[in-house]
């Protein structure tokens, strides 16, 4: 694996975009392998989504989004505990815990990190596919104003 690992801030999005059955299966296996325990109570709740509008640059609340957090401890190679965490836009506590396990395994290079990396890359590829499709859809809605100007000339006659 030669490509550098993407920054940790992208991991949640990537894992969440990967195939969820495989994410849960791998995390379940690694959780047992590394004696995972919760470090705090995983929590599903709502968060207010704050955005900045583009005219006056004021912030405003767009609405509520589901947010689930999980924080786990894993037994590292040297017998010390290492941590993994997850904050996801989802309402499934179990899924957040699974992502926290993968996060911890990958961040601390524990056994299973390679498989986690595979899922991560898959997720990133999936995100890119979706982004491309969306970009294509967006480009089709673009209007060429120069053409409109020519059409306008006709009307003046």
């Amino acid at each position, binding site marked *: 694996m030669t490509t550098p690992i993407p920054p940790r801030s992208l991991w949640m999005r990537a894992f969440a975009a990967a195939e969820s059955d495989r994410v849960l299966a791998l995390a*379940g296996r690694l959780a047992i392998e590394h*004696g*995972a325990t919760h470090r*705090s*109570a*995983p929590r599903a709740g709502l968060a207010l989504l704050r955005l900045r509008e583009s005219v006056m640059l004021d912030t405003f609340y767009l609405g509520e989004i589901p947010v689930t957090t999980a924080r786990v401890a894993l037994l590292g190679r040297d017998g010390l505990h290492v941590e993994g965490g997850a904050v996801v836009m989802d309402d499934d506590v179990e899924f957040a*815990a699974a992502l926290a*396990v993968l996060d911890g395994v990958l961040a601390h290079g524990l056994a299973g990190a390679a498989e986690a990396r595979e899922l991560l890359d898959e997720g990133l590829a999936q995100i890119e596919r979706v982004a491309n499709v969306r970009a294509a859809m967006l480009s089709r809605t673009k209007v060429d104003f120069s053409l409109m100007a020519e059409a306008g000339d006709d009307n003046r006659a």
Partner: protein
Amino acid sequence: MTTALDVPAIYRPKHQQRLFRQLLDCMARPGSVADLAAWTGGAPAALAVLAALCDSEVSLADPQRLLTGGDWDFLECRQSPVAQARFIFVDGTTAPAADLEPALGALTTPEQGATIVIRVSGLGTTGQKVRLSGPGIAAQCELGLGTLHPGWLDQRAVWCRFFPLGVDLVVCDESRVAALPRTTRVTQMGMHR
């Protein structure tokens, strides 16, 4: 599935609901003792009470440092000095510290009087015996407060002197709990054998 990842019993929503209902019943009927063992998964009752009521919205004071770092991680509440804390967790076998001054609320906001969770042993059956009367009690009833130091009852009388101001006590031993809301009149009766 991530079956290896079990959340401790007292932090599971279902268990917290059961713990709360027991606690509500105790608060509504001072002197009644509830056994929480079925829902604590072996955790001390005092910690179970805190788990059922606290979250990141409230402040908790632990002046005797009874809680571990792990407890704080799960409780998620803000650590705070005693005077500002909504919840105070103490061990009741020794007399209250002279400088322990919990929030009593104000005339317009008596609900801001602290809830003090006191850890003892032998609740209900042994130790300091008290006679209780007041709201929630049909006529009067008796309660054994285990190893609770009598100084706590004296202090409570001072804190609850001016109703509606005051503090509400939740007394816990290993698995059981009883409540003494500020309205309860307490008469000390001597010791159980």
